[in-house]
């Protein structure tokens, strides 16, 4: 009787293990935006599936912040429950690779030629001789304006389709606010995007070349000064959290916003706004050396988990799609550019027809992709370091308190940010 039971238990165990042993042709991917990176990944899968008909891709939608926590939990648990591929924000790359040196696959060793990718994207994911990811998109920025509100304020939209300084933009904002009551810029209180775009537009940094915090600079001070002026003049429509910020844009609460090309999918998700949006160059910080009318924000990259269930297939899939120069792959890059505003950083792909295409969604059928690509050419790279995330939280917290008058001067705001940074990192 006892032996019989033992056999039954052993059988159950074996049966439970069998599906785990059987090889699966399925790759699991975690990323966060159905209108953007999920869409792009599915297009990539279609390219690979042409030559590998039994290939299956399982894209799981998880919010960006939760991906980080789930990956952290999985790596801490010795690799349990991890996907094969996940999308990592570029500013988190160095932190992730430093914290978990064995967590991800060296794709250079796996045979991918990284000379074909934009160098500024490959930098943060390089550790020693290895490169631990596939660059996805670029975040070339612009000032997005609603031509219909400019018209309502009695202005000609065409005369603002030019490189402007911040004081010109503030003047424009005051007119629009006075005539239409709309603040010019939708601003997210708990986001670092606007400040980062401003600082990077002048070639500024938040860390020195040794990786120490260095935010007491002229660029940061000037940016905070301009932000505060905009806030005091009522040129910002403020909101909290990404969702509320996006809804303030698509619910016409503001006449524009400052952010990157990847917002195309979001603004297009409101078809009623067709023909109303235009994008002009990022405003320039006057009086700062190296100031320009271009910047970068966001951008993310695909990492392959070393403990993922199907990592070999995942590597082959990335090689055959995102890192492939085949006509199919290049056409795929061309498709996602217009399809959702994903401007790839695979250099051979940047000659696609959509780079010069006009887009009828925009005011005057603006060739936005051409503009964003042209602005991108001159943007200096930002140094992220493993503590970027802590720095940005500390800095946007201090900025908000400075806006609301709870911190009186810019110097005190920077001190507050430095203190919060030190306390959180404690190194």
């Amino acid at each position: 009787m006892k032996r019989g039971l033992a056999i039954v238990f052993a059988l159950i165990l074996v049966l439970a293990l069998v599906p785990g042993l059987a090889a699966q042709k399925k790759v699991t991917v975690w990323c966060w935006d159905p209108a953007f990176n999920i869409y792009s990944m599915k297009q990539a899968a279609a390219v690979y599936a042409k030559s590998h008909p039994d290939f299956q891709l399982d894209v799981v939608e998880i919010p960006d912040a939760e991906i980080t926590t789930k990956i952290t939990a999985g790596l801490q648990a010795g690799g349990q429950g991890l996907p094969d591929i996940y999308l990592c924000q570029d500013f988190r790359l160095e932190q992730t690779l430093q914290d978990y040196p064995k967590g991800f696959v060296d794709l250079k060793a796996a045979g991918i030629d990284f000379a074909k990718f934009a160098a500024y994207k490959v930098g943060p994911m390089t550790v020693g001789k290895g490169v631990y990811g596939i660059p996805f998109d670029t975040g070339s920025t612009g000032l997005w304006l609603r031509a219909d509100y400019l018209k309502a304020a009695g202005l000609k939209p065409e005369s603002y389709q030019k490189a402007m300084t911040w004081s010109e933009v503030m003047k424009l904002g005051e007119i629009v606010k006075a005539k239409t009551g709309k603040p010019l810029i939708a601003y997210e209180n708990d986001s670092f995007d606007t400040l980062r775009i401003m600082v990077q537009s002048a070639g500024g940094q938040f860390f020195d070349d040794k990786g120490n915090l260095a935010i007491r600079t002229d660029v940061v001070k000037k940016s905070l000064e301009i932000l505060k002026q905009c806030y005091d003049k009522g040129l910002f429509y403020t909101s909290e959290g990404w969702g509320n910020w996006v809804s303030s844009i698509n619910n016409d609460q503001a006449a524009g916003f400052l952010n990157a090309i990847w917002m195309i999918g979001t603004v297009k998700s409101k078809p009623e706004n067709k023909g109303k949006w235009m994008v002009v160059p990022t405003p320039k910080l006057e009086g700062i050396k190296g100031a320009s009318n271009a910047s970068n924000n966001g951008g993310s990259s695909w990492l392959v988990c070393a403990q993922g269930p199907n990592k070999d297939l995942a590597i082959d899939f990335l090689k055959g799609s995102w890192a492939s120069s085949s006509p199919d792959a290049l056409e795929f890059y061309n498709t996602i550019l217009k399809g959702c505003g994903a401007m790839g950083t695979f250099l051979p792909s940047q000659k696609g027809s959509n780079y010069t295409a006009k887009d009828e969604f925009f005011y005057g059928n603006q060739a936005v992709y051409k503009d964003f690509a042209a602005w991108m050419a001159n943007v200096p790279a930002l140094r992220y370091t493993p503590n970027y995330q802590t720095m940005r939280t500390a800095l946007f917290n201090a900025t908000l308190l400075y806006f609301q008058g709870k911190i009186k001067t810019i110097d005190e705001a920077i001190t507050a940010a430095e203190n919060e940074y030190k306390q959180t990192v404690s190194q």
Partner: protein
Amino acid sequence: MNKRGPYYRYLNRFGWLCVAPAMVFFTCFMLYPILSSLYYVTRKWRGATDSFVGLGNFVRMANDRIFQQAVGHNFVYMAIQIPLMIFLALILAVILNQGIGRLRGVFRTVFFLPCVTSLVACAVLFKILLQTNGLLNNLLISGLILKEPISWLGTPFWANVAIILAMTWRWTGYNMVFFLVGLQNIDTEIYEAAEVDGATKRLQFFKITMPLLVPVILFSAVTSTSGTMQLFDEPNILTTQGGPANATMTASLYIYRQAFVINSDFGYATAMSYVVVLIAGVFAYAQMRLLGNKERKL
């Protein structure tokens, strides 16, 4: 009895068999984590690497203003939200118990419903309602109560009000149910006697209902205190990770952020958890003592 010896009951095999599964789970999921956390407390972690720091995590905590403020926020919610909620729950319970006749069941369900819905759903709902152009602001403006919308989630003061609102909305009905049960155990003869003596309804509430419900009130206070010490979802979602500018950061949220979001520092997070458990324990002990005394008096 004596033949079996004093330890006989410890040798009951069937008894052991019955508790064995529970013991196994307890050892795996309670005892082992608690014991291993004693080791984590002495380490500084950064992802996959960790090093010995001894009591360094506690020194760090003593200098960490964000953590201290976070615990302070927990205390503020305890001091304001719990009395407010208990008072509201009591009033609702009395009204339901006396005033409303046939619709009592409906109202009871309506008030109880918030606490069975998902915390995340509640927080998201409040976040939408409290947007600058959200329903609440629009109602207040069209009702001429406000001229300018309130930035509920963007200013530290109003964000704290929002958290307290959300917590009160969620838990008032839950505590009300306890009070309703308590009220049904109060003998109606006491009220009749009071009425004969000429006591008003208000006097009856403060002199009879409240004192007789003290054990239930204390029970609610104890459970709410430990719940408030663990407050996490509302500041994480409703006010976006303890914002604005850490104004609604709570101890649990900061612990979670140190472990999973910003530093992967599980050692420091564990050390902070010990302090929070200690604080919650002290509160619980104090309230239990209070509860014990009152019960003896009654």
